């Protein structure tokens, strides 16, 4: 009798969260998979079952492959760099330096600012001629004006820089919290043993930070698919899709081209990719992560 009661209570406590999760996460995800097998309904033509036709289109869609490649380079460019910088900044502001609070605030500031707003500022950094970067280039080195956002070879790199700038401060906070939970006796013991700072970092600090690194890297991977706000403001995916990422392309297909069926197919691809990455990461890292 008692047991049954607890069972009911359990579900009752879970139900508010479950309701929201199902309405806004699980149901849409399942519906998306379902929609990917249907054509896009238009006013006079209802949707119809077309099997794998959308997936065939996807394989032949050059833009999709280009966007996927862009996303790959975006991930490669942003993930290690933002984690590395975050760790370096955390180590720095964790040490006893003057103006520590000020530098913590400074490093964290990009996280607080809305990406849309700062993208507008970054756009003026990149503007040819009178933008900040070109002013420095011509003022200091006498170089001609460049066109960073208007050139397919440099535009993605420019987007990566903005993303790293935005993310690193956020990850820094996690590292900082983790660093402060590490007992100082370890440092003292290492000092007594005569271990160098680098040795201490490599053998003690870094392994102890592994749970944080795992958490941060999963977030970084998700962000490498999710951070597209600045693309809307700065390039609109151009020139010739050189700065378009998967999520941005999905938005374009769904809400600009109104091909909702095909957009669902693209979303399924993204869901599968993210699941594989997240699961892989847990398995891969789990053995190396030491939880205190």
């Amino acid at each position, binding site marked *: 009798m008692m047991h049954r009661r607890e069972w009911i209570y359990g579900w009752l406590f879970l139900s508010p969260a479950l309701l929201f999760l199902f309405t806004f996460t699980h149901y849409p995800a399942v519906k998306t998979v379902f929609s990917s097998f249907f054509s896009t309904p238009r*006013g006079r033509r209802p949707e119809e079952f077309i099997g794998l036709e959308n997936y065939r289109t996807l394989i032949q869609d050059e833009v999709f492959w280009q966007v996927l490649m862009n996303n790959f380079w975006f991930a490669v460019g942003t993930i290690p760099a933002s984690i590395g910088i975050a760790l370096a900044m955390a180590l720095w502001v964790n040490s006893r330096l003057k103006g520590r609070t000020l530098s913590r605030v400074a490093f964290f500031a990009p996280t607080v600012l809305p990406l849309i707003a700062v993208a507008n500022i970054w*756009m003026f950094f990149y*503007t040819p001629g009178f933008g900040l970067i070109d002013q420095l280039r011509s003022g200091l080195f006498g170089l001609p004006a460049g066109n960073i956002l*208007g050139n397919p070879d440099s535009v993605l790199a420019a987007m990566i820089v903005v993303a790293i700038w935005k993310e690193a401060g956020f990850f820094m906070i996690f590292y900082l919290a983790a660093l402060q939970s590490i007992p100082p006796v370890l440092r003292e013991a290492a000092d007594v043993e005569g271990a160098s700072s680098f040795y201490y970092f490599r053998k003690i600090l870094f392994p102890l930070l592994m749970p944080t690194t795992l958490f941060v890297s999963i977030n970084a991977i998700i962000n490498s698919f999710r951070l597209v706000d600045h693309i809307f403001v700065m390039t609109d995916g*151009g*020139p*010739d899709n050189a700065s378009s990422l998967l999520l941005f392309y999905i938005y374009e297909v769904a809400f600009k081209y109104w091909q909702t069926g095909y957009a669902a197919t693209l979303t399924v691809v993204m869901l599968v990719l993210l699941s594989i990455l997240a699961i892989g990461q847990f398995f891969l890292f789990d053995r190396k992560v030491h939880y205190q």
Partner: protein
Amino acid sequence: MKLPMTLSTGLSTAALLLGMSSHALAVDLEFYFPVAVGGKAADTIQALTDEYLAANEGVNIDAVYAGSYGDTVTKALTASRGGKPPQLSVILSVDMFTLIDEDVIIPFDELVDSEEDQAWLDSFYPAFMANSQTGGKTYGIPFQRSTPVLYWNKEAFAEAGLDPETPPTSWEETIEMGKKLVQRDGNGNVTRWGVRIPSSGFPYWLFQGLTTQNGATLANAEGNQTNFDDPKVVEALEYLVELSTEHGVMAPGIVEWGATPKAFFEEQTAMMWTSTGNLTNVRENAPFDFGVGLLPGNESFGAPTGGGNFYIFRESSDEQKQAAFDFVQWITSPDQAAKWSIATGYVAPSPAAWETVDMQAYAADFPPALIARDQLEYAVAELSTYENQRVTGILNDALAAAITGSKAPAEALAEAQSKADAILKTYR
């Protein structure tokens, strides 16, 4: 849709029973409008709507600012799919085929029931109606319309030994004058370019100016056939690309729209092509004397039109449709159109609006405002097809590829044509 309808009927019945209103059936309208260039547009729409409401009892119009043009069409279509569309919206003229394809709008002809109505329908500039009619029916009423024009810096012209009052009128002159206008610093780096034709985001719009000047048409009036690989179109793209590669009068690569007026003010460029929507901005911010002229021609002058039209949505009651029709008729009538045009810089859509006292005074005070009107004679419908965003997206990608040098103009346009064909063949 069901609930509010019942509600409003219920309420008005109650009102009738209480004898509070002589207008038994108060009509509620929802009206979405976009703001593309900021500034006074939103205030002006609200003020005009309020003025209408004050003069017309029994009508309620809820004017909703719906974001950019892109946001507005997205919201209107999403609301329609959810079964609760607005009754009235200003949406890009080029989205007409998309809205027809989604079956969410009705032609204005359905609501025309008198000769006066018909006369009103015929009162607009044909250049604007080209984007508003298809299959013999009128689906959009021009309101928030613009066209690109040439702005030039008179001081830079004088400095380069050119007549400050004479802008280039042909492709060749653009190159000749452009070369004289280019300025370099001690290191040989360009500090001022001759001309600036923005190409970010939606390069097709100004490119359509070039193709029109070259005597080509980008798409047919039925919206189901494009001519991207027409040799004249290729020639126009070659000209655009060569402005930077061959002649060195324009900065290489994609040129940003947003930074263009600023580059003009900073004298980074002596001439720019941009929308008449910037007239007020340039008038207030240019630190030098400037001129406004027609886009230079080749075979002829030529420019696209742009901007938004009024549409009436299908999922509305007959009373709502009629009320929406009356409102559109009022707000596009000469006096209102003149107020709107003076406040925003959009081109007043009918010749009669230009005849009003206010408009005459405005034009006398600021003659560049007339250039946009004069250019309408040479203007064509902005590129618009079925699945418009997708098809123009394909053209945009091709133009960007050619401008950044990753593909030759002919090759890029041929590919774009075959992609567009694949999409449009179902509509033929």
